[in-house]
């Protein structure tokens, strides 16, 4: 979501007149959870058009539930999932194709569009671009925040080569002006799948948003102070959470600094509005070890949350395709980072050269405990000047540094003579 927000802002910043087509507020409330505070970071020149998505899904008012829905919520959801695949081959989301293309057509009728950027997933978000391209010859860009047919956790292909969704993706890529990927590994995988279009594939990495960051409080070197280790991000299945918590427990028995410290988790439990009960139960299991889960944090609270931390835990699943968004933010804080993930993970490359980066050879409890102890020592001895030095190093990881080169190139390509936004 923050990548999409930053992308729209980047286009607006470089003089494009931007219309964002998205779902209604209640969609996010019902289905994914939302961060309403982040709306104040939308460039005021951007027009936002909202259309409903699957109004019956996630309906809280039982009076509005149909008899079929209440008879078997499992069957009802399954039937919806099947039907949604008819217009577009993406389970659960395909039914949004027609509302999206209709709204996009209306936007184009009101004020002709020069370029469409679809940000996925859901992958149905690519549909308006292809539709306007076919009908009116408008170029479009595919921004893959994830991947459609690559399981970024296992590295395996999803579905068969000749499935309907693969054929649709091929048509989308063939018609796109360019496609963006969040790291080189995902870009290369797609280049191997679609070699004839590889030259149009670009890496547009995630980055940190400087507007969400404030300065950290002054730090004094004090080896005896109580530290707060923090994790800020989504807490979900494939991350080595139990190993991290076991490592934390070991580190507390071996290091007096860690023993008098606490570990705070902030972020969503899972990717959906309903919290993941397994992750919740696991975090509760370690409460007696000074581990606390303090709930999700709005993007607008990010600065405040980081101000409360002395060191950070980067906990990511093993995959060369996973960078994670938080690694950029973490580097921007200037705080010591315990990188508790397999070295193969794409985040390793991002942090390469970050001086206070304590990595593990394998995310086992033993290695994690060692990294946490080293991180604690670095955090206890860190001064404000050293934090500033780290932050300078991270400047190249800002969101603008990733986005603006492509946005500027697109302007030169598609609207070279256009003036600034009226």
């Amino acid at each position: 979501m923050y990548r999409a927000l930053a992308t729209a802002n980047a286009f607006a910043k470089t003089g494009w007149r931007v219309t964002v087509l998205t779902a209604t507020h209640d969609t996010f409330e019902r289905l994914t959870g939302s961060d309403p505070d982040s709306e104040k970071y939308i460039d005021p020149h951007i027009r936002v058009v909202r259309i409903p998505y699957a109004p019956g899904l996630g309906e809280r008012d039982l009076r509005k539930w149909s008899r079929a829905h209440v008879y078997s919520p499992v069957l009802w959801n399954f039937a919806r999932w099947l039907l949604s695949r008819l217009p577009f081959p993406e389970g659960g989301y395909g039914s949004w194709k027609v509302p999206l293309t209709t709204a996009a057509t209306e936007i184009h009728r009101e004020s002709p569009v020069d370029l469409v950027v679809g940000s996925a997933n859901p992958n149905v978000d690519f549909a308006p671009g292809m539709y306007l391209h076919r009908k009116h010859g408008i170029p479009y860009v595919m921004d893959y925040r994830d991947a459609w047919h690559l399981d970024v956790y296992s590295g395996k292909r999803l579905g068969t080569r000749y499935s309907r969704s693969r054929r649709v993706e091929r048509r989308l890529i063939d018609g796109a002006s360019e496609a963006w990927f969040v790291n080189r590994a995902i870009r290369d995988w797609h280049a191997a799948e679609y070699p004839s279009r590889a030259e149009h594939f670009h890496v547009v990495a995630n980055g940190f948003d400087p507007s969400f960051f404030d300065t950290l409080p002054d730090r004094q070197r004090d080896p005896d102070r109580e530290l707060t280790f923090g994790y800020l991000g989504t807490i979900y299945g494939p991350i080595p959470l139990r190993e991290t918590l076991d490592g934390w427990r070991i580190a507390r028995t071996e290091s007096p600094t860690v023993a008098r410290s606490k570990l705070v988790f902030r972020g969503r439990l899972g990717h959906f509005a309903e919290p993941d009960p397994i992750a919740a139960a696991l975090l509760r299991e370690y409460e007696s070890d000074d581990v606390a889960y303090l709930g999700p944090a709005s993007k607008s609270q990010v600065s405040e949350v980081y101000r409360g931390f002395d060191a950070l835990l980067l906990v990511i699943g093993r995959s060369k395709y996973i960078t994670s968004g938080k690694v950029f933010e973490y580097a921007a804080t200037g705080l010591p980072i315990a990188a508790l993930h397999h070295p193969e993970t794409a985040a390793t490359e991002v942090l390469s050269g970050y001086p206070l980066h304590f990595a593990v050879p394998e995310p086992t409890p033993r290695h994690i405990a060692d990294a946490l102890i080293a991180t604690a020592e670095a955090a206890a001895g860190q001064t404000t000047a050293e934090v500033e030095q780290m932050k300078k190093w991270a400047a190249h990881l800002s969101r603008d540094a990733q986005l603006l080169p492509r946005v500027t190139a697109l302007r030169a390509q598609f609207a070279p003579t256009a003036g600034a936004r009226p």
Partner: protein
Amino acid sequence: MTRTAKPFRIVLLFGSGVETQNSVALAAESSKLRQFLEHSARPVDVSVISLGLRRNIPGSADHVRLDDSTRSATDRLLAILGAFALRRWFATFPLGRLLNSLGPVDQGRVFLRTAKRHAHAMRLLRSTNVVIATDVESTKLGWTAVHRGWVDDAFYDYRSAPVGVTWQLPSEDDTPRD
């Protein structure tokens, strides 16, 4: 509004049987129950009807536990026929869960039947303004309650489930009535 005003009555439904995991999920987002507590002009009275919920919810006005209530003839017959054992096996794979949801031993139907046979639970439902189903298994009872006019409104809101775990009812300090 003074404390003597007629209270706004809410009943929380916990129907998921032996599965209590969801009811202790750490949800930090605002729940329907919290919205009522924060925005109601009248004092709010919260009661609970549950099946399989082992914990107490401090501050609740009443807690009707259906666990020990007598099973209906249907349920006794289904138990003799092994339908509940079959349900446990079916619950281990997706198609089985789908079949479970269509049959008579679906936990939502069991909860509905048990509540309807329980006089205290029915009195509580008929005297309440709003029911909040905190899990999918209690939606059938919530839906039935609102469609038969037992209550004014009914909502499905799992975010209300962690009450008493991650946050407390404001009346907890007044008089523990559970």
